[in-house]
């Protein structure tokens, strides 16, 4: 069992997963951000690999990625930073990036390195299910890594079942048909979609992402799934905050507010 699987074995509710872009706002902020998030009590951290052409992301994440690349961020640098952070925390870590970065690093070499530095899972939004199954599933599973696939309101039931079968950690439920950071409120149509997925009784836990930005939207998401993923709103907080540590503790505090009984 990796750390993600262990997390969901211990806790099924109110999971808070925070995404941030590695090397942003400053090159050396990756490790302090991971440690501050762990200290603030989030359950899971998604470390974004900055990319020049992030198709599934909105302006906030793209701009943070562009800045990180300008700061000098590379995959090798990122692996070093994560390995160093891993010395100090056992929080589950997921790396999120685009498949071109993986190909260029060398797929097998990338997967092995991910495991070696203490990462537990991957989210590669543009790696198709077909290619994953054909070429990469065996390698990734033999390393004990969890891959999370995305589902959307338009994903067919048959495809959701297939994705549930292939997932070994959690399913990333895209809240809406959109890029990241796009919507603010949760609509009735989205609630219907959340209910529909709940009724399917999938094997994997589900986290809702895209458009989760506040205590209120986080609470709503937690009612309909095992938890939620926040990205763009946290990046804005880092951008506008005084320093990584203060901004992180404040942000997570605002999202959680006075949750009773959600902390282990």
């Amino acid at each position, binding site marked *: 069992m990796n750390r993600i699987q262990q997390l969901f074995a211990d806790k099924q509710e109110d999971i808070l997963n925070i995404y941030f872009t590695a090397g942003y706002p400053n090159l050396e902020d990756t490790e302090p951000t991971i440690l501050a998030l762990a200290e603030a009590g989030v359950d899971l951290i998604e470390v974004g690999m900055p*990319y*020049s*052409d992030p*198709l*599934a992301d*909105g*302006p906030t994440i*793209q*701009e943070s990625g*562009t800045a990180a*690349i300008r700061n000098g961020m*590379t*995959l090798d640098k990122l692996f070093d930073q994560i390995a160093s952070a891993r010395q100090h925390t056992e929080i589950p870590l997921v790396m999120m990036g*685009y*498949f*071109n*970065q*993986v*190909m*260029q*690093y060398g797929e097998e070499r990338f997967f092995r390195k991910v495991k070696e530095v203490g990462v537990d899972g991957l989210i590669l*939004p*543009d*790696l*198709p299910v*077909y*290619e994953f199954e054909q070429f990469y599933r065996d390698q990734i599973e033999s390393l004990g890594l969890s891959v999370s*696939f*995305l*589902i*959307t309101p*338009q*994903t*067919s039931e048959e*495809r959701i079942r297939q994705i549930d079968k292939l997932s070994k950690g959690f399913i990333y439920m*895209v809240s809406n*048909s*959109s*890029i990241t950071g*796009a919507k603010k409120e949760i609509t009735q149509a989205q609630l219907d979609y959340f209910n529909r997925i709940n009724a399917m009784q999938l094997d994997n836990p589900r986290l809702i992402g895209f458009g989760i930005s506040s205590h209120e939207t986080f609470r709503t998401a937690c009612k309909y799934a095992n938890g939620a993923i926040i990205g763009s709103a946290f990046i804005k907080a880092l951008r506008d905050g005084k320093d990584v540590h203060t901004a992180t503790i404040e942000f997570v505090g605002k999202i959680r507010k006075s949750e009773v009984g959600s902390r282990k």
Partner: protein
Amino acid sequence: MIGIDEKGYYGEFGGAYIPEMLHPNVEELRKAYVGIWEDEAFQKEFRELLRDYVGRPTPLYYASRLSAKYNANIYLKREDLCHTGAHKVNNTIGQILLAKRLNKKYIIAETGAGQHGVATATVCALMGMPCIVYMGEIDIERQAPNVARMRMLGAEVRPAKSGSRTLKDATNEAIRHWINHPQDTHYIIGSVVGPHPYPDMVARFQSVISEEMMWQLQEKTGKPDPDIAIACVGGGSNAAGTYYHYLNKEHVRLIAVEAAGHGVNSGESAATSVLGTRGIIHGSRTLLMQTPDGQIVEPYSISAGLDYPGIGPMHAHLIASGRAEAVSVTDDEAMQWTYYLSRMEGIIPALETSHAFAALDHIEYKPGDVIVINLSGRGDKDLNTFITHYDKYND
């Protein structure tokens, strides 16, 4: 056999590397496009519009002065005479008819130099459909006349402000728009790039070029096949149309002409087949220009239609397998050929097209060989560049 397999691969290149949010749109297209293409009513409407609206067939012109000079039989496929001034409209006519059959209400497109944007805005006006064209903020400044044309035709031109603010970012923005509007919008991609089925679909719409070449050559030379077919390649749509019916005729040499910019190794180039490595761009596994860390690089060419960091997966396969020969042509050579062709044949070519002609100075051929060059577009849009550089190339 060179062709696409059922998963959308040409050899190792192609596929559909797209986020799940795009899957329903792309899957809908994948399931529908062959049926629509093969439908008789579609073909009738497509062919009628190509004839009566675009002005097809375009002539195959024997360039006698050029032929004498180069000791070959050089024919020019006059795509520059298409309505809107380039081959791009063959594809936009096909895609708008397809969009109507899929009951789409809105059209989006990306554009670099503005030719595909104009061709899309044109067919949207023709069909009375709203049209949004994404264009890099930098390209909007560089290509003002085409921006004006699109607005005349009723399209909204939206600046792409992310990344390098050129064609690749306009394409990213168009894809993001499509993610946000999955139900009622069709995305008209302008080249043989993007996730499957786009490369194959666009190639089919452009295949009318080589289809006409075959009977025109038969009439003029007694044989349907040339010895050599030459086309410039950015994403590669005019080249795909030029090669299409010859892909599996090994005796026809296929020449793909890329923009070398200031020189292949100058650091300012768009010669993807030389400088590119395997990777993914805009949903397709192909050759692209990138850093060792997998960040996509902004290419350079004086021609805004050729400075794309990738290349269509069909061309990646043709070049990697040796079926097509890649030639790199610099800004300088292309500019010289623009002035040269204007005076030799009375035709002012688009800057992209000038690159194709310059291949004549690079390739080997036998005296008397039948060579077809796709004259993919006319030079009106580039007049400013030609006038600015006039003294440098005409002493």
